[in-house]
């Protein structure tokens, strides 16, 4: 396929950067595998992406910690995951862009006007509804900016647990009245890519899917791409055999922990967390939390911060204290004793009142 690359296309950009077609195909093959697409789709993806015009992307950051941006920039360079970002046209990202002040906002307005109905909107951070002044950019409240930018977007990718489900800002008692993108925008397709932060390759994978097919991938009930969030950490965890054998670490420094046994009893939330950490891993496939000896904290699940102590096993109650439980047990036992005593006295009275049945007494006198 030695056709001339169209000017402004991804293929041309790749060529300019000295990326061979072979390397690009390798990336596409890995990507199709990750997205759980048939192998034959690799060349289709390569074709589609290399011919695509650079996709205009606007990235808005609201109540966030910049961790999501950190994550996506932490992907090792030079990798194709990193490069594909250069292959889109990131028209606005207030952490990464060089422009500032009025020029920065002008860039956003220009991109919105020039790609009306076509640009992709990426959001990280939650939106405060408590008071518009809690978080503003260039004097515009997060809420207003989201509404304004979302209007002309082809689709929205909510990145990170704050944008997808409210995240840390929404944690009890939610002082800013934080909500997720999906709580506000109802008329646009939204892809949720939760995680605190999300895995870089998951973010780039979702973008690749959008570039290839021009639509959004298959999502689960919580709006997450099934290809990355279809299974729990637990089901894909390399420590799962220990769980099945009932081999658990009891403390972080015991013999069992050193042997790499299951961290369930130390509060691992792997069994209830849907994410790809156990398969794609982090830092270019180096490791993930459980591999480095710490249980999963369930950061890609809604309200994970309020889902009980991080170091308490899932099977333990999270809301009741030991005193409450003890009190409830004692009250239950006392009630049980009282009812049993009452029932026994009822039955004893019935026994005492028993008159021996004789054959004469089998009939009623009036009968």
């Amino acid at each position, binding site marked *: 396929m030695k056709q001339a690359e169209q000017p402004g296309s991804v293929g041309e950009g790749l060529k300019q950067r000295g990326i061979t077609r072979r390397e690009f195909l390798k990336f596409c093959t890995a990507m199709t595998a990750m997205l759980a697409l048939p192998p034959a789709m690799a060349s289709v993806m390569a074709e589609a992406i290399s011919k695509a015009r650079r996709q205009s992307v606007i990235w808005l950051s609201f109540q966030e910690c910049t961790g999501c941006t950190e994550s996506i920039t932490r992907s090792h360079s030079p990798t194709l995951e990193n490069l594909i970002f250069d292959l889109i046209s990131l028209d606005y990202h207030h952490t990464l862009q060089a422009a500032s002040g009025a020029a920065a906002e002008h860039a956003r307005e220009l991109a919105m006007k020039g790609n009306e109905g076509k640009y992709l909107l990426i959001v990280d951070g939650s939106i405060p509804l408590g008071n518009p002044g809690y978080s503003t950019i260039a004097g515009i409240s997060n809420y207003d900016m989201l509404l304004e930018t979302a209007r002309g977007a082809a689709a929205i990718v909510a990145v990170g647990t704050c944008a997808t489900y409210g995240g840390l800002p929404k944690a009890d008692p939610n002082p800013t009245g934080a909500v997720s993108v999906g709580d506000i925008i109802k008329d646009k397709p939204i892809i949720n890519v939760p995680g605190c932060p999300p895995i870089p390759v998951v973010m780039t994978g979702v973008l690749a899917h959008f570039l290839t097919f021009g639509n959004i991938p298959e999502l689960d009930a919580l709006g997450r791409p099934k290809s990355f969030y279809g299974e729990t950490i637990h089901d894909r965890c390399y420590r799962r055999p220990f769980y099945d054998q009932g081999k658990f670490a009891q403390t972080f420094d015991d013999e069992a922990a050193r042997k790499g046994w299951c961290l369930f009893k130390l509060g691992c939330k792997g069994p209830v967390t849907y994410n790809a950490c156990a398969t794609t891993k982090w830092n270019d496939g180096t490791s993930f939390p459980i591999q480095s000896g710490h249980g999963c904290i369930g950061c890609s699940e809604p309200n994970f911060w309020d889902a009980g102590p991080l170091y308490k096993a899932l099977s333990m109650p999270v809301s009741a204290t030991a005193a409450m439980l003890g009190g409830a047990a004692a009250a239950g036992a006392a*009630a049980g004793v009282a*009812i049993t005593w*009452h*029932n026994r006295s*009822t*039955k004893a*009275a*019935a*026994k005492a*009142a*028993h*008159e*021996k*049945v*004789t*054959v*004469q*007494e*089998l*009939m*009623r*006198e009036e*009968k």
Partner: protein
Amino acid sequence: MSATLAKGLNSFKEVIDAPIASFFSSCVHCGLCAEACLFYTETGDAKYTPIHKLEPLRRVWQQEYTLLGKVGKALGLSTPVTDAELTEWEPLVYDSCTLCGRCAMVCPVGNDMTYMIRKMREGMAASGHAPEDLVGATTRAVTIGSPMGIKWPAVLAQIKHVQAETGIEVPVEKEGAEYLVLMSSMEIINFPEYLSALSRIFKQAGVSWTLAQDAFEATNSGIQIGASDLAREIVSRIVVAAERLKVKCVISPECGHAFTALRWEGPNLMGRPFGFEVKHILEVLDELHSAGKLKTQGKDKRPLTYHDPCQIARRGGVVEQPRRLLHEVAEDFREMPDAGTMNWCCGGGGGVSANSRAEPLRLQAFKHKKGQIEATGTQTLITACANCRIVMEEGLEHYHMKVEVLGLTELLAEYLVEEEKT
């Protein structure tokens, strides 16, 4: 002195124990027990759902032994059990339940409805809501010694007849014998073949046995009507006689509820373990057969099938023994559908056959047994309960079926190797 509602309700309170409380509280109202009950399957009437037959007892449990029920009763919110209600329930508790226990086999939470009906009858009897015929039978059992009014002279006459026929002496009041043999009234009056068959089998096996003058009757109307005070009196006659004659084992005859009364309820009624074993005649015959003491010759050519009596198979656990024995003497033995522990009742157990009011319903329910027999294509039906036998003979007669019914013991005796002992 008379039965009163107060006595009945007091009795309900008295019989409710931990099993009954857990049964009522674990019922999930699935209705599976209905499909297991032949009175429901043959009538399609929902009132014959086994657990429904216990409704008055359930309400007493709920009102007297549960917290919410107690509160409701104290506030006057609950409906008390009345005489009128018990009158309405009488046919459900006595006429449409043979205590066959099939419902308990299918209950997904393991509720034993039979156990509960048996206990509920205590209150029904104490409140004067037992069927007249059962009251009569029970009165005869207590005052005369047998529900059919049979006295020792009648047994003696049969002994003489059997001795003349077989030439074998029937031992009576023999102290130190191994087995005490009991009979049911049905066998004494309708099926003298049983005693004659036993004499011949025991002679061949060289077993020492005896009859007792004051304890020949195995049946226990006290169990059927649900009066433990009377059941205890009736069962104690057998216990006293067995201990007086120092027998090792008491043989329950071919009768269903007699086995239940003596083997399972007996020690509980007496409040102590027996000094002797209780076995069903089929268990004894099977033991003799395994020991090589029961030898048969030839096989019956007729295709035949076996009806498992509920109290002996399902409630008594004697399932394999009749099959082993039958294979010795039957050339073409055919199992009926649902044979064994899931067999269908003849329709007349648990006092139903003694209750003339229940006859039309019993005959209607017999259709299930009719279908089972027809499915085997046989015209010879073997069983091991004289009550099942008489009920089935009546049913077969009613539906104009040409099927002969035989007791397993007498069938075995027909093929016995008769050897002259020197």
